[in-house]
């Protein structure tokens, strides 16, 4: 899970990484009071999880009380995203902007520290355009990051004296967060460098490993983490779900197969309303899965599976039960194969469904239906 900037900065603060003074507000009318306490100029930053906030107009500087509330209102009401909260932060006048992160390298099986004196842009852009400007230092996850490696980075960034020492501290703190919170990624971009040889984290990105949630401090699922109510519900149900705005609700099993069906819908000229997996541990939960699909204004539900443990007969029976309970207002196309698939065919046929056996055929049928073809 990815934390909001304000949450990540709270973690930074606890680990001794300097962050600007700030206040979190939930309405435009709180902005002036918060900014007044912090002192002008201030930065107003939408607390949303998507990237590119600056370009989307979700981050603005205010320099006097007069325009603070209007600017805040502009961000809250932005069409670019659903904004529930703003972080009001003291503006920083940096001497430079750096980049720091720790993540994992699957190939070498080591953790990887990346740093650059050219922060402020996306690391991917930097990697593509100026790869030589990115410093890398890897470490073994059982031994951990050692201070000499942090020094290697600090001095390779051409820092001197106190600034180098400060950088070492920040890197070691960043490592502490990475380790203690089982992070997938912890990133500071930009890290502002100040003339007096100190640093302040301009932004904070912290992605935690959901699989390690049981062994670290908890960040419970909250509505704010999700763009839509359906995605939030799906997350609470533990059903992998992504929202799109097309016609066909996918209700498939297996990540690879669902992605393949997603591709095929597009190849056939269709559009996807939602991506949903009801395989794996959820293969008996057809009703919950279908409820999520029905919460969309989609035109067709397309169920494609090819399970081993997720038995075809069990899934077919679940689908039929879901139909009985939910009485969907839109057609269902099924292509349920795998363990006990003969039985599945019987169950689906008995329920009046036409079971497909070939994925591409099923997709073509769904696309045709979405375009107004007959069921």
């Amino acid at each position: 899970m990815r934390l909001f900037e304000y949450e990540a900065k709270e973690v930074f603060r606890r680990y001794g990484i300097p962050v600007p003074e700030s206040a979190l507000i939930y309405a435009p009318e709180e902005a002036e009071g918060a900014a007044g306490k912090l002192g002008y100029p201030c930065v107003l930053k939408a607390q949303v999880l998507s990237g590119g906030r600056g370009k989307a107009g979700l981050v603005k500087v205010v320099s006097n009380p007069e325009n603070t509330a209007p600017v805040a209102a502009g961000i809250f009401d932005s069409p670019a995203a659903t904004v529930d909260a703003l972080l009001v932060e003291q503006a920083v006048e940096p001497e430079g902007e750096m980049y720091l992160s720790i993540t994992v390298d699957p190939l070498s099986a080591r953790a990887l520290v990346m740093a650059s004196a050219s922060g402020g842009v996306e690391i991917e852009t930097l990697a593509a355009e100026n790869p030589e400007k990115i410093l890398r230092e890897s470490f073994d996850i059982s031994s951990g990051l050692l201070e000499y490696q942090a020094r290697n980075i600090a001095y390779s960034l051409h820092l001197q004296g106190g600034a180098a020492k400060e950088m070492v501290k920040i890197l070691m703190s960043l490592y502490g967060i990475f380790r203690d919170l089982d992070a997938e990624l912890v990133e500071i971009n930009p890290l502002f460098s100040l003339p007096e040889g100190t640093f302040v984290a301009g932004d904070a990105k912290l992605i935690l490993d959901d699989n390690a949630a049981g062994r670290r401090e908890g960040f419970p699922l909250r509505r704010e983490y999700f763009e839509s109510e359906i995605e939030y519900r799906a997350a609470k149900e533990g059903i992998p779900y992504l929202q799109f705005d097309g016609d066909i609700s996918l209700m498939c099993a297996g990540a690879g197969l669902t992605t393949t069906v997603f591709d095929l819908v597009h190849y056939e000229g269709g559009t996807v309303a939602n991506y949903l997996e009801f395989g794996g541990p959820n293969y008996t939960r057809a009703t919950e899965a279908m409820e999520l699909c029905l919460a969309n204004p989609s035109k067709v539900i397309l169920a494609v599976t090819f399970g081993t443990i997720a038995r075809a007969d069990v899934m077919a029976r679940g689908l039929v039960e879901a139909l009985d309970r939910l009485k969907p207002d839109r057609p269902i196309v099924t292509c349920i194969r795998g363990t006990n698939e003969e039985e599945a065919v019987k169950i689906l046929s008995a329920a009046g469904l036409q079971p497909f056996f070939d994925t591409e055929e099923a997709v073509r049928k769904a696309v045709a239906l979405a375009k107004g073809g007959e069921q």
Partner: protein
Amino acid sequence: MSILLDRSTRVLIQGITGKEGTFWTRHMLDLGTRVVAGVTPGKEGESCQGVPVYHTVRRAAEHEAEASLLFVPPRYTKDAVFEALDAGIRTIVTVADGIPLHDALQIRKAALSCGAHIIGGNTSGVISPGKAMMGFFPYWIERVYKTGRLGVMTRSGSLTNEITALAVRAGFGVSTLVGVGGDPVPGCRFSEMLPLYQDDPETEGVLIIGELGGTMEEEAAEALASGVFRKPLLAFVCGVYAPEGKRMGHAGAIVTGGRGTVNGKIRALEKAGALVATRPGMLPGLLNQALGEEKTT
């Protein structure tokens, strides 16, 4: 022949007495897998599907297992992997879905440093159809799994059944199928299996079932380009239309900053000389093109 696993491989099962362990042990035995022992702490002296059960891997030492299959929950997987490695086992399959990322790094690092093959997590396992299986595949559905000369490597489960069924329909069977799994840090990678397939006389070509995210397909392309692998290489890669930055399905299937895109993978594979399908329906034609008259054995 086959890779990693054949009829003679002495297989241990950690977590044998659990529901999944018991169920799939039956299937593995039925297929002909040589399951020599099982491990469940606290259950030594019992037997499970006729297989003797031990408290620990070390206590099962007399059975001289060469490979171990783990039916162990994600958070205990690291421990179980190290237990198997400590006992000298160098082929390990872990089907657990949800291994913590930092554990996965330590697991893979251990694999690299002692030269072990650790397959998974988040995989259906390994099957040499007609011979032996470690994991769960519906080998009994003839239209899905047939013995043959095609090596298959995959990051998926259900999609794998979809694709192998197409291969069977086109007349091709499988030598060994290795599910490297859908995690961001799998214990072994496509490119690390290719030398094994290269050396296997029964494998005449290899099919990769890939997806968006990561760099495993690109590494396989590199192995082909550099001549490490010299047999026909085919690939099906899904996720052409997947949006950037979203985790589409597998944790390993996330595209960020232009890396791990399906188009990048396809370019790399084709440039190296591989045949790439982006729709399942393209596969039979490509298989015939690459392997010609090769058919199921």
